[in-house]
């Protein structure tokens, strides 16, 4: 009886898992087969890279890749520097206005830049940055979330280590660099993976502030390419879709455990 219950559950779990993979598997099917097989599932259908070649030639995807890469690197580098400095101040200094400032930082956890699109557009336009990659990145560089995570990590660093570094004559910046940063490694990895995934996938804000091939990230490029008005063949659109998700998907498949753990750490805080 017991065993029977278990195998029924195993089957149910597998059915759900296969169902869950279906949309992805289908998009791969359609991307790697000629368009007449888009909804004809024939095992003998010939495989082809033609859809990818056509997508690549019909829109500047190389440029979109470059833009997305520049965007995620810029955001990540900025976030790491800004959050490290701020978290260090919050975790290790007693100064005037600390509680108020920390509360002001936490406001961003509640009201994220994603919903302040109207006013942020005005700010970006006042800074004369419209249609540039920094325009997409700037609202996200000070990350309350990053500051919060790193502050927690830095607070747990034992005082003895700090004292030891001080005895050796390290300045407060030296202590940060030689004691805190190395000890925050797992937090940095977790935050980094979440940040890169988020900004690789982000869409609405980049759509609003960009208007040209030179600044559009992959997601916006894909939306422009796939718009029904363009009349592009469905299989070619799927190929472009697969191209957009491929780098992140491959990274995830290779570093599954790190991804899951990072998302978890970052979510639980």
């Amino acid at each position: 009886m017991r065993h029977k219950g278990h195998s029924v559950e195993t089957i149910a779990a597998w059915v759900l898992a296969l169902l869950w993979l279906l949309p992805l598997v289908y998009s791969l099917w359609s991307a790697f087969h000629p368009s007449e097989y888009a909804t004809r599932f024939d095992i003998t259908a010939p495989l082809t890279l033609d859809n990818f070649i056509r997508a690549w030639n019909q829109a500047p995807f190389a440029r979109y890749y470059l833009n997305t890469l520049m965007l995620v690197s810029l955001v990540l580098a900025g976030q790491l520097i800004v959050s490290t400095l701020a978290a260090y101040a919050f975790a290790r200094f007693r100064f005037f206005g600390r509680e108020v400032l920390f509360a002001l930082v936490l406001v961003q956890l509640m009201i994220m830049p994603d919903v302040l699109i109207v006013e942020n557009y005005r700010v970006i336009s006042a800074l004369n940055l419209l249609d540039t990659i920094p325009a997409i990145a700037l609202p996200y560089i000070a990350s309350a979330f990053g500051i919060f995570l790193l502050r927690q990590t830095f607070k747990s660093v034992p005082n003895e280590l700090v004292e030891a570094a001080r005895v050796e004559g390290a300045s407060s910046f030296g202590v940060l660099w030689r004691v805190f940063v190395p000890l925050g490694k797992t937090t940095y990895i977790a935050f980094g993976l979440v940040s890169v995934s988020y900004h690789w996938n982000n869409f609405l804000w980049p759509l609003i502030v960009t208007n040209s091939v030179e600044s559009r990230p992959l997601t916006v490029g894909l939306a422009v390419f796939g718009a029904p008005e363009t009349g592009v063949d469905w299989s070619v659109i799927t190929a472009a879709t697969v191209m957009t998700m491929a780098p992140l998907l491959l990274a995830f498949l290779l570093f599954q455990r790190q991804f899951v753990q990072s998302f978890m750490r970052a979510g639980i805080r």
Partner: protein
Amino acid sequence: MVSAVMSAAEPKAVRRKAWLTNINAWLLLLPAIVLLAAFTHYPILATLYHSFFSLSRGGASEFVGLENYTYMLEDDVFWQVLRNNIVFAIATVPTSIALALLMAVWVDKKMAGRSFLRLAFFTPTVLPMIAVANIWLFFYTPDYGLLDQLLKSLGFSGHNWLGDPSTVMTCLAVMVVWKEAGFFMIFYLAALQTIPPELKEAAEVEGASRWYFFRRVTLPLLMPTTLFISINALINSFKLVDQLVIMTKGGPNNASSLLLYYIYEVAFTFQDTAFAATLTVTLITILAAVALTKFVYLDRRIHYQ
């Protein structure tokens, strides 16, 4: 840290040190403060400010008091997107949570191929919403799409899934549940792994059924996680609008539009930034209310444990 140690012997040197600590800390915080002020605090205040002014098309904008708000309350589309958002939240939040819990319980067990199961459930989380929308758009395409082809092969007639106000929300909700459930699963998984195995052994000795154990022990222990996930899912249901740009543009007849998408439309298609500011104030109020509930209720609960 440093300034905490005050000694009466050298008040001058100590005060100097306290000064230095303050300056050091503020310098460390400077980049974060400037950026947060420019892209979070100022925009929030500016949104509020602009919601009390008329639109300045060419001329100067005037203070109009609550006129924008009266207009909003009389705007049928506003009420419709708000209703849509609530329906969307009710449709997606409990379903994703229930599925996430089921997935987590399965993956947590010693089941054949559990790492494959976890992979399958979690994968949609790392995909861009815009790519997901593209794939699902084809499922729902009338006649040519996968769903209609499947129905036709079974002898049913096709349907314009995204073009029919009565089915469009369900279609979008199914897709969002598919994308989100695996993300919430990992939090349940983490929580399940903290339940001591002795509890289960004791229950088995007592002869408790698995279902009884799940209901009386596992579920209550997962309560903080459930609350945490609910709040996050609720916030997401107000933030997720990427799919609308690709799939429906809020249509047909605003049947699938959500508050943030309406803000986007009003601000960037209709160029009515004053009204968009008013709508944004509403959205900010909702998000702040949810976050405060979380702060008062959830954080305190976790504290007690």
